[in-house]
């Protein structure tokens, strides 16, 4: 009886756990839904993937760690940085599914840098550099790092052949070995361009968006906008994929470079939202109520599109009821009420810098972090070239400045993508930081 009770009790545990088994399907607030160890309390660290600037400090791309816990004596200060040995247009990054590792990409170097953030969350360590993306896939410009179980799906921006915008998705296992590639469709209305990745597991749905190739993103912005032919070479599509089969199902015409994609992961919700950089619109991708056809349509305007405010990042609340939008050119941070995602309404705006790019919010939405750099050759010049990370608190009505780190004064570089870290995550892993990647 004692022996058999073990199995019965395990089954009972299943039943007891049923009420909470589907919880935590959202993220904090824009990570892969396959990721574990979400930081739902006070984040301790902010990891900032930073572009090196020639003549500034060591000039290399680096992962900077900021202390962002208000209770810490080092609050708002630089704790550490880990340089990667080169300058290659640091851009975005993403956690592995178990949050042990942070993968970061170089849009120019075409390299992927894997940092161990579990051994000592305050001091990430570069443990592997993956340099075979171009050779194995023909893609260039690793952008989005999206965790799948045991794997990393990477959205890229360009290709090694002509450095244009036709590109695809590359799949690596967590050990850093290339597995497969998936071209963005160039038929059925597809332009083959790529940018972001976002998954809704409950719908078996993968969405991709589209930006531009190396020829555009590595070109001086002032020159680029004067080149009519080059300005035609931006993505105008989003693609819905059958995730399980990794097969494109539907192409949406979304003019003006749709960038970040955010799913509402509330149970039963069936929509995602994105912002178009060049046309300054919010677009909704939504499935019909009966679970059939998907449609994409414009649902709101961001600022004055004729002034090209250039919306560059969005951050959705964990309950999907609100959306932050950063516009690079006017340096504004806007808040949209998403209670009705068919009709988003802007309810707040504030100038948060002379140029602003990424925006990240805490799980509870009470803390908001903003960085300054878009691309090395697209950032503003002179006094407008502020390089910073600014922390704010959000009380539902006002963004209140909390701290600022001047990345130029600190000799660090251009501050771009931000991810959260926590001291508590250290205890979830081996005491000696045992790493599969490091031991390979």
């Amino acid at each position, binding site marked *: 009886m004692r022996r058999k009770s073990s*199995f019965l*009790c395990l089954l009972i545990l299943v*039943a007891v756990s049923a009420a909470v*088994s589907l919880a935590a399907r959202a993220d904090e607030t824009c990570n892969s839904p*396959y990721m574990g160890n979400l930081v739902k309390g006070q984040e301790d660290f902010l990891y900032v993937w930073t572009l090196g600037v020639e003549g500034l400090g060591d000039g290399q791309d680096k992962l900077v760690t900021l202390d962002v816990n208000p209770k810490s004596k080092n609050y708002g200060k630089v704790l550490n940085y880990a340089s990667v040995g080169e300058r290659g247009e640091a851009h975005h990054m993403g956690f592995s599914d178990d949050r042990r590792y942070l993968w970061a990409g170089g849009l120019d170097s075409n390299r992927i840098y894997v940092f161990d953030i579990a051994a000592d969350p305050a001091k990430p360590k570069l443990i592997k550099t993956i340099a075979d993306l171009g050779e194995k896939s023909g893609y260039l410009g690793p952008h989005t790092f999206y965790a799948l179980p045991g794997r990393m799906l990477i959205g890229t921006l360009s290709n090694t052949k002509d450095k244009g915008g036709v590109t695809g998705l590359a799949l690596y296992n967590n050990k850093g070995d290339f597995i497969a590639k998936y071209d963005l469709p160039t038929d059925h209305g597809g332009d083959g361009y790529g940018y972001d990745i976002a998954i809704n597991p*409950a*719908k078996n749905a993968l969405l991709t968006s589209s930006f531009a190739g190396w020829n555009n993103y590595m070109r001086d912005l002032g020159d680029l906008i004067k080149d009519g032919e080059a300005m035609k070479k931006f993505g105008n599509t989003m693609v819905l994929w059958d995730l*399980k089969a990794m097969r494109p199902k539907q192409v949406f015409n979304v003019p003006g470079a749709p960038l970040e994609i955010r799913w509402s992961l509330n149970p039963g919700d069936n929509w995602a939202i994105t912002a178009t950089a060049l046309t300054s619109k919010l677009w909704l991708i939504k499935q019909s109520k009966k679970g059939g056809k998907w449609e994409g349509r414009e649902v709101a305007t961001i600022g004055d599109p004729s002034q090209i405010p250039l919306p560059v990042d969005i951050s959705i609340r964990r309950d999907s009821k609100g959306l932050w939008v950063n516009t690079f050119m006017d340096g504004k941070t806007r808040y949209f009420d998403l209670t009705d995602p068919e009709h988003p309404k802007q309810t707040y705006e504030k100038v948060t810098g002379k140029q602003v790019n990424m925006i990240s919010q805490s799980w509870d939405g009470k803390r908001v972090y903003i960085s300054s750099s878009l691309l090395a050759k697209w950032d503003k010049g002179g006094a407008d070239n502020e390089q910073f990370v600014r922390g704010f608190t959000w009380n539902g009505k006002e963004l209140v400045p909390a701290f600022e780190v001047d990345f130029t004064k600190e000799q660090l570089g251009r501050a771009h993508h931000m991810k959260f870290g926590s001291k508590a995550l250290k205890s979830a892993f081996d005491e000696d930081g045992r790493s599969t990647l490091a031991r390979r």
Partner: protein
Amino acid sequence: MEVLLQWLVENARNKRMNRFASCVPFTLLALCLLIGGGMAWAHESVPAPLLGFIPPAPGTYELQTIMPTPAGEVLDTAGQARPLSDYTRGKITVLGLIYTRCSDAQGCPRAWAAFAELRRALRSNPRLARQTRLVNLSFDPAHDTPGVMMSIAEAAGGRDNSPEWDFLTTASIAKLAPIVDGFGQDLRVSSDLKASASEPLLSHTLKVFLIDREGHIREIYTTAFLIPQVIVNDIKTLLMEGHRG
């Protein structure tokens, strides 16, 4: 989960894990009896993840080769040491790393429910059942001895082994570590055998591995995709591939 994990860790550190291990199952057994439970009740009460889509038909998609299964030595329920490859080759294998003291709602209990439902689905297709193997490997060798795994095997179906369902453990954490590492299963295992051999500190993300007949991992299911219908389709897809060259 974090609160529970911290509680477990603290209790283990305070040498109180044995009390937890002994009292909780009895509490749950009492709950089981009160509800009039049993295996069938538990199975029917477990909600699978919401399936808001129609899975692609078997054979219409490709399962990528993610990585090879690691080498290692395991113990069967008789305590016999055998290479892990005995359980990862020759048939399509669905393998989950579990431990019997796990009570994380997103962890082993979810895996148990999925395995039980998967077995039921496979039994309805004898040809599929013959070519498939279910494996549960414990990552708690100090507690989950071959005897404990035998008791679970008996409760799960005894000698009625269709499809084959193997319950394995390892002789030590030293034997376990390379297996866990090779699967890429995040897990905290104390390397200090003397200090913690009887009370390993454990934490993990639920992962179930689909392994082809040549021992390659072809799919990894976590909470979001641990759906028996999807797994059965994947098994059929692998069988339709034929033997890899």
